[in-house]
């Protein structure tokens, strides 16, 4: 079944048109890596699918629900790991997770949270204010959040930036697990090596058009 379906999406910011009539489909259990030069509109597409900004034209469905009319349901099924970490500086890791989960109506035990923090290797810093976290640690914390939420659709904006080697392995392990459970994953990235390890499909967004290529081409560095 198709979990992410964008039909004829277009977005313009007043004067400037980013893209036009863009269609994308990602099936359940698939991981789709979206490449493209800076300014091609990758993040814009992601933000539309994440219900953050309204498309100027077109419609989209997430997990079978219309993204414009059934926003609340879509937001319950989807998780967006954006460029911003969505963390409150004055709260510690556990409090930040609890807050994010509470907004989604989830309650988890201390043990579950502790376990997730240990998996991303920030257990020792669990009660440190996230103000003092490095960018990589913040990223790991958002991975822990995603692990606890287990969304049906996961959107990621450049998931590998600021992560170290083991962090990237952790991210890929998580993405594989999630896709294995039947979730759809759509990410924008510039990291060919890392994304080739998990991606089932690869797309290149350039000059307003989305072109698909194979994972082999990606591995062979044959795209743009």
């Amino acid at each position: 079944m198709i979990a992410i379906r964008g039909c004829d999406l277009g977005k313009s910011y007043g004067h400037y048109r980013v893209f036009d009539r863009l269609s994308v489909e990602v099936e359940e259990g698939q991981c789709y890596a979206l490449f493209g030069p800076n300014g091609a509109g990758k993040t814009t597409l992601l933000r539309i699918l994440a219900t953050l900004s309204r498309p100027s034209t077109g419609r989209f469905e997430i997990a079978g629900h219309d993204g414009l009319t059934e926003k609340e349901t879509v937001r319950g099924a989807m998780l967006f790991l954006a460029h911003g970490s969505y963390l409150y500086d004055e709260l510690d890791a556990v409090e930040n997770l609890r807050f994010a989960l509470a907004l989604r109506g989830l309650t988890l035990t201390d043990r579950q949270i502790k376990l997730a923090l240990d998996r991303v290797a920030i257990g020792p810093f669990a009660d440190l204010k996230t103000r003092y976290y490095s960018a990589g640690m913040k990223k790991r914390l958002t991975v822990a959040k995603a692990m606890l939420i287990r969304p049906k659709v996961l959107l990621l904006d450049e998931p590998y930036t600021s992560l170290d080697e083991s962090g990237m392995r952790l991210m890929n392990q998580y993405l594989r697990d999630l896709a294995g459970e039947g979730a759809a994953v759509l990410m924008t990235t510039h990291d060919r090596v890392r994304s080739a390890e998990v991606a089932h499909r690869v797309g290149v967004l350039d000059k307003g058009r989305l072109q698909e290529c194979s994972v082999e081409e990606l591995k062979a560095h044959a795209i743009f």
Partner: protein
Amino acid sequence: MINAMIKWMQRYEGWVGAGGALCLLAGLYLSLVASPPDYYQGEVVRIMYIHVPLVQTAMLAYSVLFAGSLWYLWKRDPIVDNLCHAAAGISAFLTAAGLITGSIWAKPTWNTWWTWDARLVSFAVMFLILVGYLMLRTFVDDPEREARYAAVLAIVGFVDLPIVHFSVEWWRTLHQPLSISMRGVALSGEMLRPLIVMSIGFSALFVYLLMVRTQMLYLTRLLHAKKGRLLSHAHLSDLDT
């Protein structure tokens, strides 16, 4: 929808404008020449024929803005946003003109430019809200968000105005035992007629301005979109045709 509304405006704006102009001319004749001076106020009363219709029309314009804002939030039609923007600008202008003419009328009749009367204060607050509304619109980058915020502000402000009026009325009876008679002029038929004609004339003028200004804002938006298309990557231009 957009096209239907614009076409409708283009078809009728001339008639409304001409009708309004005729009404205003007739009204000016009736009020400045044909009607008698007031028993108490003398010739000064003639300001009323301008002031009262101005105030009425300003309130009509804000009501249109209020209804349009609700309509916009419901349907999200950009042309309705242009209509609201137009109505707000005209309403702000009419409110300012109403305050000024009111002040000029107040000086000879009440011997003061300004008094903290409930109508005056709520009208001044309305002016401030409208100016805030127009300022807000210039400070938002995304047109869709601009429209949304403006609509919310217009609705909240509209609901606030009766409460402002009510609170100032209470406050005034507390502090200024009525030293000035706020009783309106007792209107005879000869004075009522020009007033009604002027009111119709100003309302028609408002509707005419609303039509023209809405179209202007709509065309400006269209122009920006076109310009944007030219500025966008060259590849996108072939998608437009």
